[in-house]
């Protein structure tokens, strides 16, 4: 990587470097990793489950006021990784999209379409100089009326992809490796409990530590109960116990 040739504007605003790279977009990815948090989401046969770390370093903060899980529409939710304030802005804009779609078309916005809107908006930020890309990876999931449980990952580059399981944040690569081994078989379809436990186990493995229910946030949508819900500490505790008993 020749630093010399890129001493110009390509590092400051989103224009191409001589090697054809968009440095500002790459730095936005770094911003996502720099929060030190990892999030994981897994799609099972009838549900999607997401888990993220909850790190509140200040003892005086009320932990219920800090959350990275957001409801986007009745049956759509997301987990954001990266700058919380950039995330809130993006969630706000996405909620508006979802509500407008429902108003215009009388049915819930398809998950893929919602993810596409987020991605297209992110792309605009990578092409305009006056605004920087947002330092957020948004993992959107929901129960689609036509296609069932869906999981999409939208990143600052304007890229969106559907997944069976995905991760974002500091240890995303390790998490993806773990999940690929678990879901090697394309026909593997996990039931609700297995999905939640796979997500929890993945996070425990990449963090190489056990955690308490208060240190994570878990949310899910299921075909039986499509409403986006955040699990209570007791429910998370039950799953953690189930995992440790299994081992």
């Amino acid at each position, binding site marked *: 990587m020749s630093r010399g040739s890129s001493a110009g504007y390509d*590092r400051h605003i989103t224009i191409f470097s001589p090697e054809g790279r968009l440095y500002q977009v790459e730095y936005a990815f770094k*911003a996502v*990793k*720099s929060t030190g948090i990892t999030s994981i989401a897994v799609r099972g046969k009838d549900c999607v489950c997401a888990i993220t770390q909850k790190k509140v370093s200040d003892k*005086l903060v*009320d932990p219920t006021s800090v959350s990275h899980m957001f409801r986007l529409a009745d049956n759509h939710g997301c987990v954001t990784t990266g700058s919380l*304030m950039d995330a809130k*802005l993006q969630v706000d804009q996405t909620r508006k999209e979802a509500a407008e779609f429902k108003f215009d078309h009388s049915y819930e916005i398809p998950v893929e379409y919602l993810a596409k809107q987020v991605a297209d908006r992110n792309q605009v930020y990578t092409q305009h100089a*006056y605004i920087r890309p947002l330092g957020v990876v948004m993992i959107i999931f929901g129960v689609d009326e036509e296609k069932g449980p869906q999981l999409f990952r939208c990143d600052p580059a304007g890229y969106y992809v559907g997944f069976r399981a995905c991760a974002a944040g500091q240890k995303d690569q390790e998490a993806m490796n773990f999940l690929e081994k678990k879901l090697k078989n394309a026909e593997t379809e996990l039931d609700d409990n297995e999905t939640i436990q796979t997500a929890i186990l993945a996070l425990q493995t990449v963090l190489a530590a056990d955690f308490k229910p208060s240190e994570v946030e878990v949310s899910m949508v299921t075909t039986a109960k499509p409403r986006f819900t955040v699990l209570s500490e007791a429910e998370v505790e039950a799953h953690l116990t189930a995992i440790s008993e299994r081992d």
Partner: protein
Amino acid sequence: MTSIGTGYDLSSSTFSPEGRVFQTEYAMKSVENSGTAVGARCSDGVVIAVEKVYHSRMMMKGSLRRVHFVEKHIGVGIAGLLPDGRQMVSKCREEATQYREVYGEPVPGRVLVDRLARFTHLYTLYWHVRSFGCSALVAAYDAEGPQLYMVEPSGMLMRYNACATGKAKQQAKTELEKLKLGELTCREAVTELAKTIVNVHDSTKDKLYELEMLWVCEESGRTAQFVPQELIDEARKAAEDEKDREDDDDDMDDA
């Protein structure tokens, strides 16, 4: 710390190679240059205290307002660039008015600070504006009970049981962590917060200072108002006496 500035700190719309937005971080630094502000959520309300440093004896007491009121039940304490703080308060008042017009009732604290945080955050995205150089401590008492929030220049918003910002925030935080907030009443908190500020105050650099305090509690009828001056004076005197006594004890030990 690599790449302090070196070109990545010229605008809010630039990420550094580590993914940091330096302009916003510098805005947070400017808060650290101002007098300390502390807040505590007690069992019956919220108290906010700010250390108002006067740079000249000519300044009139009561000027350089750092404590402002929005609606009847919300008070805001500013740390950092005070003119920027006035803008934030102005925005709060606009939002509160708009909420009343649309929903017919006073804005809940939670909604107001959310709007303020998003407003502040917007200024960290565009290159033709700079971030706000101030943090706002917001005290509210509504149907959800007493709440204390802090909005930082980055747009970060969190709800606190107690918080501190400004020059001596680390020291102040340590003192606040020792308090049993769940059991304190606002009257007691006035004394405790005065003590905290007196203890962290740097008397070599900033000789003249005033304590400006606001509270919103049962005693004030859930209205945000200045803490009565007599209470502040009493609390400050008690704290300063205690500090003098401790200093004397230290001197005697050394001798």
